[in-house]
Each structure stands twice: as structure tokens, then as C-alpha cells.
């Protein structure tokens, strides 16, 4: 059946089974490929998107459960000041190796900084440990979050 969902500020109509995870609606129905599939079990965080500003795992979110909530994906995270600062820090510190997990990392980092403008290492550990980086760029992810936090204060 058709569902009307708010994706990156636009109302989109999708005609899919209600159990279809948001991840696959984004990727295969709406052609928004930035959100990644890594595990299908909320274990890796590659599919992290924002639902009303909160980070969620799109692979475990049936489209029928989204309702009127605002969904934000990596394609639009740069429209917020914090998201833009996070992207800039990622570029400046040359964070990625393969880059596959980084959309999810950026979504989690942006959500963290929206809630905690100056996160401690403990805050970073708590907010970011659901996002696996197989290349283990954790040192730079941590530095980039701190860099973006600094940029947000000035």
C-alpha cells in the first residue's frame, strides 16, 4: 500500500509492503544510496538515519512505523549547520579509508553534537559505539567530532 513519508523535507509517496525496512525504501525505491546496508540486524550502524533528529537504524525500521516523522539522510545532513561542520571536519582530517561506514558515522556524530555541543571522550564512546568502522578509522572519527564541536562554538 502507499505510504506518504517525509524524507529530507519532501513528502514522498512509496507503494511498498508495510514491513519493508526504511533502508530499502531509501535505497531501492527512492534511489537515495547514501544510507548503507552492512548487517541487516542493527549491529553495525551503517544504515543510521535521523527520525525527528534522533539516530535510528533504518534496517530495523519498517516503513509502516515511520508515520509523519521527519526522516533525514546523509544526502541532506549538510543542510544543518552541525551536519555541515561534521562533514567539513571529516574532509579536513581525511577521516575515511574505504568510506563505507562513514555516512552512518556522520549521522551518529551529528546527532551527538546536536544534543551535546562539547562532547567528552565518554560521550563519544557512548554515542558512536554502535557504528562499526571495519577500517578502524576511530582515531580520526574521534578527532573530527572534536573538531566539529570546536567549529560549532566559534
Amino acid at each position, binding site marked *: 500500500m502507499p505510504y506518504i513519508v517525509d524524507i529530507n523535507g519532501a513528502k514522498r509517496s512509496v507503494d511498498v509492503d508495510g514491513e519493508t525496512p526504511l533502508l530499502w525504501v531509501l535505497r*531501492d525505491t527512492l534511489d537515495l544510496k547514501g544510507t548503507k546496508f*552492512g548487517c541487516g540486524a542493527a549491529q553495525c550502524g551503517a544504515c543510521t538515519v535521523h527520525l525527528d533528529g534522533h539516530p535510528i537504524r533504518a534496517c530495523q525500521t519498517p516503513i509502516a512505523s515511520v508515520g509523519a516523522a521527519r526522516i533525514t539522510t546523509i544526502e541532506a545532513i549538510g543542510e544543518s549547520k552541525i551536519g555541515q561542520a561534521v562533514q567539513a571536519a*571529516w574532509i579536513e582530517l581525511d577521516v575515511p*579509508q574505504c568510506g563505507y561506514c562513514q555516512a552512518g558515522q556522520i549521522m551518529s556524530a551529528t546527532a551527538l553534537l546536536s544534543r551535546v555541543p562539547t562532547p567528552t571522550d565518554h560521550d563519544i564512546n557512548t554515542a558512536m559505539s554502535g557504528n562499526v568502522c571495519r577500517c578502524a578509522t576511530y582515531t580520526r572519527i*574521534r578527532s573530527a567530532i572534536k573538531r566539529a564541536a570546536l567549529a560549532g562554538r566559534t
Partner: protein
Amino acid sequence: MLARRNFLKVSLAAGGGLLLTASIPTFTKAATLGAPGPDAVALGAYLHIAPDGKVTITAKNPEVGQGVKMMLPMLIAEELDADWADVQIEQADLDRRYPGQTAGGSTATPLNWLPMRQVGAAARSMLIAAAAAQWSVPASECDTTPGRVRHIASDRSLSYGALATRAVSMPVPDVKDLPLKDPKTFRIIGQPTRNIEVPRIVTGQPIFGIDVSLPGMLYAVFQKCDVHGGKLVRSNVADIARLPGVRAAFEVKGGRDLRGLLDGVAVVADSWWQANRARQQLQITWDEGDIAGQSSADFAATALRMSQGAPETILRQDGNITTGLSRAAHVVEAAYSYPFLSHTDLEPQNCTAHVQDGHVEIWAPTQNPAPGAVLVAATLGIPDSAIKVHMVRAGGGFGRRLSNDYMVEAAWISKVVGAPVKLLWSREDDMRHDMYRPAGFHFFKGGVDATGRLIAFRDHFVTFSQDGAVASSADLGPTEYPARMVEHLEFATSMMPLRAPTGPMRAPRSNGFGFVFQSFLDELAHAAGIDPVQFAHGILGPPRLLPDPPGPRQGPGFHTGRMRGVIDLVAEKSGWGKQSLPKGTGMGLAYYFSHLGYFAEVIQATVSPQGEITVDKVWVAGDIGSQIINPLNAENQAQGAALDGISQALGQAITIQAGRVVEGNFDSVPPLRMRQAPPVEVHFLVTDHPPTGLGEPALPPALPALANAIFAATGQRIRSLPLRGHNLSTSA
């Protein structure tokens, strides 16, 4: 004639400008060994200079996160004397003009260091010739500044863009006569250079294999037998074909090659989720064959039993091990082991294929496209020339994508359904159908004399065979450290038959050997009451090159001075032996030579009274020769490799039970997470040796450095991995 001799070709690019194709004999061995290889392979690159001055450089190798798409163009751009701001990079397809289109073995740097620079130098020389002709001055009076040729005497200059079209008609230089830059004048090589892909990555652009989309494309899953190579007997495939969104469901009869097309059932649907959901209702009867009884527990028991008998093969014998052990003041005997591992690339294996009119077009995140094309051709019964492979950025490789099983599956499914198909494996498919890092069992004896010198060393390595030969990446070489430096030494092996496929994983062999050899050497040092750094000095002796014996694996040898150099550097940087650490905290040292790189690492770790491990800090010291080509990426790679090793050591194992892999997702194979990741400090020792690769050699020392740190912290010697099997938790 000249062009043929020089292996260089030029042509006018579409739209004007210089197009340089270079096919230069490889200088890998010349670069790393000092002598040409027996079979010179050709190397190639494209370079296109447009009239507007834009320089487009084609990166010929697959990019899997190692940074080669930046590194190769940096080499060309340096000798071209291009302005890096003018450079654009394009990814090559699989193309006969480019040999060595593979991502493996940390080989891209030593293979391309000289030839890629020669490509750039050749183009620069032709641009100079074009300017000299235009100004009617001798070329020797001209030189270049970034992006321009100038004639100093007359204070004239022309941009590369303005000269590009004319340069095409200039004689092609002989590569042997081409002057290369003095490294002291490098402006691009050696500069921390940001990866041009990062802006695309952070904005979610569709640049990975899984992102490929074609008009009319369908989505596929492929269910194989979890007992590797099991044969399909019957299935309810007809019922599956009627499920929502399913366009086709069919049985596939494959062959015996575990790296090729195997028996299975393909489900093709309008979306991947529909295909995968329909797959859940599959009921398949398999003939699991005679290997369904294999298990990790049995392998361990068999290995122990075999260790008590005579080994099947003696690989190396120096002196007399019995004599050596009898003369030792301290003798240690210990059994070490490591488990099977899965590569766990974060982007699950996938491939998009379109078979049409006898031609196949493939978009594959692969590390090794050429054998993939051969496999597809042989399986589909079409000529190699009918296959076009696009190399798409891969979300991690780590050796898994050296095999191309997903490629032949996608091509087969596309052929059957007559439409473009994207095949995507689930995480469980990926973990249960890997080419596993083989497990290994090492039974050591070592002896140290009264002066603290290692005089006797024996390893009986119980490993695996497959189809009668040693399994992939399960072999031990005769030069494994400390061979060549110990008076009485014996390496011996025995093999157990294995059905599960094995293959190379980041730092193959070394990723397991590093742990067992370096842990046992640490054990010997402590038994003799000698500091591990001093013990290493004693084994290595004076700086000298120990040549490799002739054979297929012959390399440039092992330089004891380079190894000692990084050990001393990491000891200095970590404050080794100078710190008073609290109870429960310890430092461990390990060092390892692999893939032409020398690495030493120190790890500081704390173990709480409850057995919870915290990795406090890692220090890495590496010697990969005279040049760190891109320091920004080099640091990232070395940090990642060390943390990759720590990730494996802390929690990872693949368990075989009843012939199949038990684990299926990250809940049972825990990857390292942010809260577990320590800071990693990286130092490079620049030495006067040809530059070598970095994807792999920083990994092997990390595992034993951690195990040795746990010993220093607790007195508990870790002789098997992962650590979570030792009543040690990892806050995972």
C-alpha cells in the same frame, strides 16, 4: 620503431590535447631487489592534458580503501610537474593496457614507484620539447614550473594546456634516458594529500559497488549450501516464484570449485528486500557430502595428536635441534593456536551484471578483476573479449575480494533472467561463504643459553590441506623469523584435510604467525630473565642483509638493521622500560617483517581484577623505505592495521561445526568499536631503501604486542586467540 622500443604511445585526445598511453616493463624487482625480474610485466597509465590545462590521470588499480586511487596519480603528477590543483582522477576499468590491476600483497607501491613516475616524466619531456620547438630554442634551456614550461633566458612560459596538442607530435623519449626528479625537490610526493573522494563520501554519493543502478535492473539473492560445496538435491523453488515481487526463482547447478559458481537457488525480485524475504521460505534438500562432520573442536584435538608424532614434512633444519635444546640453560615448550577468521568487509559481497547478446557487462567491487573475467567467461562459455568489467569502489577488501565468486553468480543469474541484475549477499551469506583465514596450531620448543642468547628453536606447525595440497594461505615459509639467526632451528609441518575454503586475509600467514612467533619469543625472553628489546637485539645481531633462498617466494631478503631500527624507535617513543606502570598495567613489544615492511609495536594494556581488558595506547614504528608517499593516508593505514589486529585478538573467531560456520553476524564476530579503540601513535623511520607498501605490514605485530602486554600486566600468558576465550572480557 622508437615508440615500440620505448613502450610509449601518444595520440591526440578526443577534443584535443595530449593522450599518453604508457606500457613500460615493470621495475618492481629492480626497485626492490636491485635486479630485473625474470618475466618483465608491462605497466601502464593514462594521462590526458586538456587545452584548458586540466590534467586527468587514470588510476589503474582497484580502490578498496587503501588509497591507491590517490597514490598512483600522485606519482605521475610529481614527475609531470603538474599543479595538483589541476589534477582530476579517473578510475580505470579492467583493461589489457594496464597490467597489475589488483589490490593485494601491499604491492602497488613497489610495483609502480618507478614506472608511474616515468609516465609523468615522459609527458613532461614531450611538453618541454613542444615548447622548445615553438620558441625555436634548445629543449635543454627549458624547464618546468607546476603546470608550465618556461624558457628562463627569454623569460617566456607556456601552460601545459597550451602545449598539449603540439606535444603529441614530439618524439617519444626513451624511458631509460628520462631524468627523474631529485626526491629532495618533490612537491607532491611526501605531502599530506587529502583524498579527493572524501567530499563524495561524506555527502552520500553513490560511489560503491552496492550503489550501482541500471535501467530495468532486478535484485537477486543466491542461497548456497552452508556446508561448503554441498550439492542441491531438490527445493520448493516453484513456490518461491509465486511470492510478492518475485520475478524469477530457479535452481543453479554449479561446479566443484569453491571459488566459482556453486549449486544454489537464485531468487530475483523487484527489490532486494523482496528477494531476501522470499528466500526465507526456501526449503532445500542438500547433499552435504562427506565433510559435514568437520569441526573446529576436532581440528584442535587432531592437531594436538599430530603434534605428538613425527611431523610429515621438515621444512628447514639448521644445526641439530636436539643438541641445541640440550645445551640450553632455559627451555620452554608451548602450544599456540589461532582460529579461522572471516574478512567481514563492511560492504557485503555484491556485483551487478548485464548479460546481453553474448556480451557481459559487470560492475564489481573486486580486488582482482582479471581472474573474475576469466571465471565468468569459462562458466558462461563465452570468450574473455566479450566481458567488460568496471571496477567500482569497494567498501573494504582485506583479501576477500581477491576471489570473484559473487561476480560469476551475478553474471549467471543475469543470463538466466535476461535482465541486468544486482546480486547482493546478506551479512550471513558473507560470513558463511568466505575464503577464511585458516586456523593454525604451532607446537614450539625453544632454548636460551646462560648468556641469554636464543640457540634453539623448533616449530611443528599443524596446518590444513585442501584437495591434497596445502590450503590457501596456510603454508609456512623457510625464512620465517627467527630462521637464519638461530644456530639450531627446525621448522616442520603436518596437515589436516579441510573442506571450508581458505584464502588470503590482510597480511596473509603473517597475521597468524606474528601472534604465535612473537608471543613465544617474548615467553623465551621472560624465561631467561631478559628484557624483550635486549632479547631481540641478541637474535638480530649486527646490521646485515640475510638473503632469501632461491625459489618462487624469493624476495629482497631480511635486513636485521632495519628491524632493529624500528624496535629501537618504538622503544624510545613508548618509553619502554622507563615507566613505572601501576599494578594491572603492562607494556608488550612485538616486531614483524612482512610485505617488505619492517614494523615494531608497543601496546600498553590494563587488565582489571575482574579481567576486563582496556587497551590504553599503541605505538607503531615502521620502516617502508625512503619515502612516505602520502603521509596523511600512511598514518591512517598504519592506525587502522594496528586496530584491525587488536580487533581480531580481542574477540574474533569463526567456528566450524558440522561442516558449516556457526557465526553469521557481528553479534557473534564482534568488530572493534569506538569505546575499545585506543589512540595509536605512528612513527616512520625513513631509510635509504626503495619505498614499499603499507596496507598490510603494520597489522601482524599488533596481536602479539597486546598478548605480551597482558602477560606483563597479569602474568597470564596468552597462547590462543581470541582473548575473550581466556576469562578476559573486552567491554564489547
